[in-house]
């Protein structure tokens, strides 16, 4: 709504700082700087502060102690001490305002009103935290030469009574009036240009102190912004805004530069912790923009919440998961179309004081979700509710669940794009689906145990499916990891092919398409691994990634054994390297026929088993043998569902529930399990994954009395996109060493494939035709999925450059496709390239792993041959 003229003439900005931002002197210096900058913009400033960090909890502890009838003097003295020390730290000679509040604290703790800890007394005690911090702040601003005054928030934040509010809520969880108030604008305009006031507190009609409760300080700032029709409200916190997912779960989550109020509200409600959802309504009503900014990094843009006209393409904005959800499913036992069933059900929830969040209903069933409120978890309210519900329906309690929510304006219009994302739920037990009636969210309730790994996967799928439109730079900012993670400093080195362009073009001149494999890069990768991961006792190369003889020889030359998955791979290795000792070979097949096991065992090659079948049907093969057992610990990780190699829908590994049967069969067959193995996905770029999975596997080894080695597989990721960060090998090395020290009895084996060869290989292809159609620029090259099937099979991303004109301005957005008669024959979409011309050479990067080895003669087109460089 437009602000009245009287208001518009005075331009206010509200800055809010939380507890950690006001608890140290350097942070106050930041505040002073920010206030000065706003003054230079010609704005009047209202600073809203929280209590020093930890003080509200200490005040709550005083209240709890009073409730138990304990003495309070020591606690009050400790709080006074904390604040007086801070006076010293700030270098203030005196702090008369603070001393008043300390006296008030002592009086409240000693006075007769503490008896029984009545609610009005509690409100006064709790209010002291902000009263003290704002007083300190007023003194400090003054000392820094800022023309500032202390303002009592209770003069202007007035309680708006809510019907049916409990006594507790009327004192400790109040709401306030927030219509723009010209009298207040005029009054504050007569005061100093900088005012410092309290978050969290307000007063009722009689002027008595009340508390806003959870999210109170943000909400106070929002109220001030609305009442003053401010230019904006700035929430200063410890992160640069709202992100597309919780950065702790998804480090690649992107900053949300701009959101409208409703989207921000939805994101805050469904999981983001950075803003309390209740603070958005006042600014929305008043049309005041709200910024979220990082106190430590004020230069970062942050998030701006305002009534933005939708400019960018429709997009999912964020994904979140809330855990601890309880579902109550009620099956009507009454008559068909029983009148009033829902009313009866909800009356019982109301009677037990339980507030329902999500609802799904059917003719004879209604299922609702309950958030993990304090009373639900610590009291028997759920049991009592169910006893009452049983009178009218059959009840089933489903817990613990998690609600996974995608937020974005116009979710219903995005359904088509979501198809590959929703496919992820195919293998999962989805308990409830709801689509919010305001079309802002789509929520899946699943078992809690599967939610945590799900969110990063869904986030990645949303990006890949372009349902989360990262190309909309107006909305999406940089990733959290590029802003904050320690990994941000790890720069991706210049790829080798960029420095050896001439040699590659010379190879291309001899004929395309062609794979080129830089053997020195393979060797360097092997040395890098051995140097960074000394905890690994034995290395094997998973030759399925690339079976080129030169690569095998180079890797074996670095002391690696070779891991084979077929008898044919074994034959190839033995033919190529007849001198390689047999103990350097490992045979890890999956669903191979009996004859291949016989051949491997016959040559004395160590075998890995991953099912009961061989022991049930061919036990005689294994008498007096030693094997490694491949386990499926029940979950996987990786860059695509087809390369996730652990978990319920994976064909790999023995389920843990079959271990005791396997051991019984092994005992009968005279077989010893001397090692255990699990390969938990591929393309993992996060060091912590290896620590967790190795520790998990080691924790299983106890059941195998003969186990002496643990093979944690490979999975060492190689970044595919230029903006991805390489795996921090040193961090992986530290993680492995830490776990190994805890389980020193087991030797550690690893068997990387991709890591050794992926980046060493490139595919060179020549441009055949260029076509413009449907607004797209299609660039054809002389090979496609017949040489490189990963983009079609896994939607894998491979960087593509125009090698003929490397470094020139990328002026075209191209869809790079092959000549195969198949609509999936696409090597890369939306690639920025110098517009390719017929005959130019394109380079497809990172094709050394699973490139040539997966090639085919589809369409009878010969795939690119691979040669060593």
């Amino acid at each position, binding site marked *: 709504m437009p602000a009245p003229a009287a208001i518009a003439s005075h331009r206010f900005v509200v800055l809010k700082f939380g507890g950690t931002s006001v608890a140290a002197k350097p942070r106050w210096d930041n505040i002073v700087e920010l206030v000065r900058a706003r003054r230079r913009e010609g704005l009047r400033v209202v600073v809203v502060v929280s209590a020093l960090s930890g003080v509200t909890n200490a005040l709550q502890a005083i209240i709890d102690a009073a409730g138990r009838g304990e003495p309070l003097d020591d606690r009050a003295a400790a709080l006074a001490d904390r604040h007086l020390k801070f006076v010293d730290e700030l270098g203030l000679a005196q702090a008369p305002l603070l001393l008043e509040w300390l006296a008030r604290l002592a009086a409240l703790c000693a006075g007769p009103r503490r008896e029984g800890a009545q609610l009005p007394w509690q409100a006064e005690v709790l209010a002291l935290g902000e009263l003290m911090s704002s007083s300190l702040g007023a003194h400090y601003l003054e000392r820094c030469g800022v023309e500032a005054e202390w303002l009592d928030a209770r003069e202007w934040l007035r309680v708006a009574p809510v019907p049916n509010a409990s006594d507790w809520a009327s004192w400790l969880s109040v709401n306030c009036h927030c219509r723009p108030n010209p009298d207040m604008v005029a009054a504050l305009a007569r005061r100093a240009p900088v005012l410092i006031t309290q978050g969290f507190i307000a007063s009722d009609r009689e002027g008595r102190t009340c508390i806003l409760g959870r999210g109170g300080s943000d909400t106070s700032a929002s109220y001030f912004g609305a009442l003053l029709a401010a230019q904006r409200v700035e929430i200063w916190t410890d992160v640069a805004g709202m992100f597309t997912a919780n950065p702790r779960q998804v480090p690649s989550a992107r900053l949300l530069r701009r959101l409208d109020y409703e989207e921000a509200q939805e994101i805050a409600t469904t999981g983001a912790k950075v803003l309390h959802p209740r603070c958005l309504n006042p600014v929305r009503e008043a049309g005041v923009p709200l910024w979220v900014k990082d106190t430590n990094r004020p230069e970062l843009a942050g998030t701006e919440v305002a009534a933005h006209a939708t400019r960018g393409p429709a997009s999912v904005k964020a994904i979140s998961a809330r855990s*601890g959800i*309880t579902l109550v499913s009620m099956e009507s036992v009454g008559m068909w179309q029983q009148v009033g069933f829902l009313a009866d059900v909800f009356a019982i929830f109301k009677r037990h004081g339980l507030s329902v969040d999500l609802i799904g209903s059917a003719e004879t069933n209604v299922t609702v979700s309950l958030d*993990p409120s304090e009373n*639900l*978890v*610590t*009291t*028997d*309210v*759920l*049991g009592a*509710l*169910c*006893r009452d*519900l*049983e009178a009218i329906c*059959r*009840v*089933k*309690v*489903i*817990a*613990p669940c998690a609600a996974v929510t995608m937020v974005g304006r116009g979710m219903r219009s995005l359904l088509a794009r979501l198809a590959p994302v929703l496919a992820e739920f195919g293998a999962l037990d989805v308990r409830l689906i709801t689509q919010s009636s305001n079309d802002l969210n789509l929520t899946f309730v699943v*078992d*809690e*145990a599967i939610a*945590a790994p799900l969110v990063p996967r869904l986030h990645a799928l949303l990006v890949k499916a372009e349902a989360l439109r990262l190309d909309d730079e107006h909305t999406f900012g940089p990733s959290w990891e590029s802003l904050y993670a320690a990994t941000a400093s790890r720069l991706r080195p210049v790829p080798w092919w960029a420095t050896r362009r001439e040699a590659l073009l010379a190879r291309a001149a001899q004929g395309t398409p062609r794979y080129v494999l830089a053997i020195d890069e393979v060797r360097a990768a092997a040395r890098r691994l051995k140097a960074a991961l000394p905890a690994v006792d034995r290395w094997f190369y998973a030759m399925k990634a690339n079976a080129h003889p030169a690569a095998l020889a180079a890797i074996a030359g670095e002391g690696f054994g070779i891991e084979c998955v077929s008898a044919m791979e074994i034959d190839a290795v033995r033919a190529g390297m007849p001198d390689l000792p047999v103990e350097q070979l490992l045979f890890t097949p999956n669903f191979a026929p009996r004859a291949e096991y016989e051949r491997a065992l016959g040559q004395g090659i160590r075998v890995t088993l991953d099912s009961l079948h061989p022991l049930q049907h061919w036990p005689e093969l294994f008498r007096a043998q030693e094997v490694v057992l491949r386990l499926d610990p029940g979950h996987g990780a990786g860059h695509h569902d087809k390369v996730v190699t652990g978990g319920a829908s994976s064909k790999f590994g023995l389920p*843990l*529930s079959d271990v005791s049967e396997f051991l019984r069969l092994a005992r009968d067959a005279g077989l010893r399990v*001397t090692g255990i193995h699990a390969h938990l996905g591929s393309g993992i770029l996060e060091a912590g994954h290896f*620590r*967790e999975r190795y*520790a*998990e596997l*080691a*924790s*299983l*080894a*106890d059941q195998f*009395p*003969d186990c*002496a*080695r643990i093979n944690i597989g490979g999975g060492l990721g190689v970044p595919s996109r230029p903006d991805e960060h390489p795996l921090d090998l040193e961090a992986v090395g530290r993680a492995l060493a*830490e*776990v190994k*020290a*805890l*389980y*020193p*009895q*087991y*030797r550690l084996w690893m068997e990387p494939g991709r890591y050794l060869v992926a980046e060493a290989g490139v595919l060179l292809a020549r441009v055949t035709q260029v076509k413009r159609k449907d607004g797209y620029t299609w660039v054809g090259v002389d090979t496609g999925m017949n040489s490189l099937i990963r983009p079609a099979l896994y939607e894998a991303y491979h960087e593509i450059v125009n090698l003929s004109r490397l470094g020139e301005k990328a002026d075209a957005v191209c869809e790079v496709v092959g000549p195969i008669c198949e609509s999936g024959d696409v090597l890369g979409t939306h690639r920025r390239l110098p517009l390719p011309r017929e005959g130019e050479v394109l380079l497809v990067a990172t094709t050394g792993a699973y490139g040539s080895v997966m090639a085919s003669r589809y369409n009878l087109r010969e795939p690119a041959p691979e040669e060593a460089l």
Partner: protein
Amino acid sequence: MSAFDPAAVRAFRFVRAGFDAASGTAELVYSFDDAHEFTERIVFPGAPPLPADRRPAFDAALRLLHLMAGVSYYKAAVPPEIRVETGPLDEATAVLCEQVYEHGLGEFAWQNRIDLRGRVRFPRGAPAPVAPLPLGLPRASLVPIGGGKDSLVTVELLREAGEPCTAVWVGASDLIRACAERTGLPLLNLGRSVSPVLFELNRRGALNGHVPVTAINSAILVVAAVLYGHDAVVFSNERSASAATLEADGREVNHQWSKGYAFEAMLGEWLAAHVAPDLAYFSLLRPLSELAVTRRFARLTRYHPVFSSCNRNFKIVGERPASRWCGQCPKCHFVFLALAPFLPKPQLTAIFGRNLLDDAALAPAFDALLEWQAHKPFECVGEGRESRAALAALAARAEWREDAVVARFAREILPALPAQDLALAPLLEPGGPHRIPPRLLAVLHAAV
């Protein structure tokens, strides 16, 4: 790498044991014949200087530790002869060792198809020692923390009784450290490193399997009690730990023999006669059933997010419950079931991160706990009647009775069980033999 042939070993030798006061390190040396020497090290961090009057007790305790810790190495070959080169043993010590090596290796012997009866023979010849003098150790208990519910219940009972305590654990473990820190007690983390030669022999074909780790830890804690000055070592083994898990070829095999009452009593008497008459060694939970312990633990909510009774050897734990609870072992199943009658459902499922009673695939696993058409698992879990009573209680509860395992129990098993055997209350009563000092009995019998 040449193979190791256990049958070729003639003798297991106790070579020497020493203690380096400067580093607080006990060095325990063993060997097979003259070929393989093993050195195990136990580190007692920040150990204070030993008062002279405690020296004889300390030496006796260190000798016990040398004898007990040898079981890990002995079992790698189980040779026919045992030689103790640190001086002759008296009859009582030799008998204690023989009991621990034979019964403590019971499961190992069963798995490896070895008959240890009559095979474990410790040389003896020394006269019984003169009765040791009281040490007058400070009144304080060493409480070993295992990461599970039991030791945490012990800590809180001792706190209630006003006993000064130190939370102690052996080896590195995130899980145990988190539990120990939650107690708010003084902490003592002892180091133990097993000889790498043993790992090497294991890779080359040595015999391997379960060892009586509570016997080893008991000896470590006895040394610690004398060294740091504590007058009690208080374990948390409950009543059912004494029951045999299986009978084979006429012998009883108890998965956790060294947690049973027989071992506790034997070691307690040995300590009184060889170390000090005033150093108490007992298990505070001995008269309690698993359900009684669980009911007490249900109220200790501050431990709920950190503890785990799961049998998986979790040493590194993540934030998610799945990194503490595998959900697949009988311990997970039993603890879930035993806590369920005493906790709000959302609180219980939050601990485990899933609802094990609503997983139909687990019905056979719960049948085993109920001893319903199945044998009790080879694990330390409560008795069948405890599981039956707990499930019967849940079948009467609206928020549980539609869950897969509970519904099936109510439909198929409950009707066949005599109603009078399903009451919870009698199972919660303390009873059975114990060695708890009288001053602590009151807290155990106090109403929960």
